[in-house]
């Protein structure tokens, strides 16, 4: 009887752990879709990461930073076009503020994660880790596949 009860408690505890584990992975509340990192050509010291980041946290939040172990420094940059001249600059805070349910689209020729000082070439088929820091949600980590352009 005692043994059976202990087993029951152990089973219940294990079940609870599973439930908690499942919840924590499903309710990360910041999601990313269509994410990828561009494979780097030989000699390139910088790379770009893309994807659609969605704020599902239930409140507005602000993306305040981005980092990756593969980059010496990472920033959200915006490619701008003016009379055919392309430039890049760190994205303004207004672009990185996400209302609940709002998406931040990082795509070629627009906003992207600018990875400066690539530690080693990003090879097609490999993965890169990236961490987005939000004001309220804190750090959210994603793994992105490396793809050829």
């Amino acid at each position: 009887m005692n043994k059976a009860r202990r087993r029951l408690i152990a089973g219940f505890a294990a079940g609870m752990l599973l439930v908690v584990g499942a919840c924590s992975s499903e309710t990360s509340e910041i999601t990313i879709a269509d994410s990828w990192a561009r494979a780097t050509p030989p000699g390139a010291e910088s790379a770009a990461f893309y994807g659609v980041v969605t704020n599902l946290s239930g409140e507005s939040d602000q993306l305040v930073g981005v980092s990756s172990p593969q980059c010496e420094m990472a920033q959200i940059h915006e490619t701008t076009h003016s009379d055919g001249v392309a430039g890049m600059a760190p994205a303004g805070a207004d672009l990185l503020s996400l209302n609940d349910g709002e998406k931040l689209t990082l795509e070629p020729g627009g906003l992207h994660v600018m990875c400066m000082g690539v530690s080693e070439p990003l090879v097609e088929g490999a993965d890169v880790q990236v961490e987005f820091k939000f004001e309220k949600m804190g750090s959210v980590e994603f793994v992105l596949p490396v793809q050829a352009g």
Partner: protein
Amino acid sequence: MKSSGDSKRWLPYLIGVPVAIVLAVVGSQAIVSVLRPHIYSGTVIRGDTPAPTMEDLQFVSGDAVDLGSFDDSDAVVLVFFGYTNCPDICPTTLSAVSKARNQLSEQDQERTQVLMVSVDPERDKPDRLQEYVEFFDPSFLSAGGSEDQIARVASLYGVHYELGEGTVEEGYLVDHTATLLGIGSDGVLRVVWPPDIDAAALADDLEELLS
């Protein structure tokens, strides 16, 4: 009897009229598709002013870049100004150009030469630049020169660029004209495409230029 005689009289019309309509529709569509001018996705440059030459610049092989040398074989030369530390727009454009070229017939591929000119000669040494372009397509060529030479050629092509702040060690960005310039077999600048050109649209334009 009378009714069957009527239907016999109408029979040629019953068959002939629909056939004639079908032939007219198909025929006019064929004529329209042949006569309809190709609508370029890029901006067509009017006039016959020859494209500026790049005599000062050097291919990695050491030969002077003379766009006139491509004239012999009815080619299109696609010139792109960029730099290897450009992680977003340059790879986007170069991979679209590679995809577009691969969509062409083998014959047209041989007649399409892509040339990247670096606006960042300080960091883009010739070997590195050539390795960079070959990553996108082994057929791509690159050209470099001294800062003065590149500045001169860029201004001839109406290409603007401005080096951002920072040392080589710190890294810096370069704002630059990222359009793709299409020079025809006669050495005349024909079409200018935006940096975010779609590969299929570019392939259609190239086919037209080569036809």
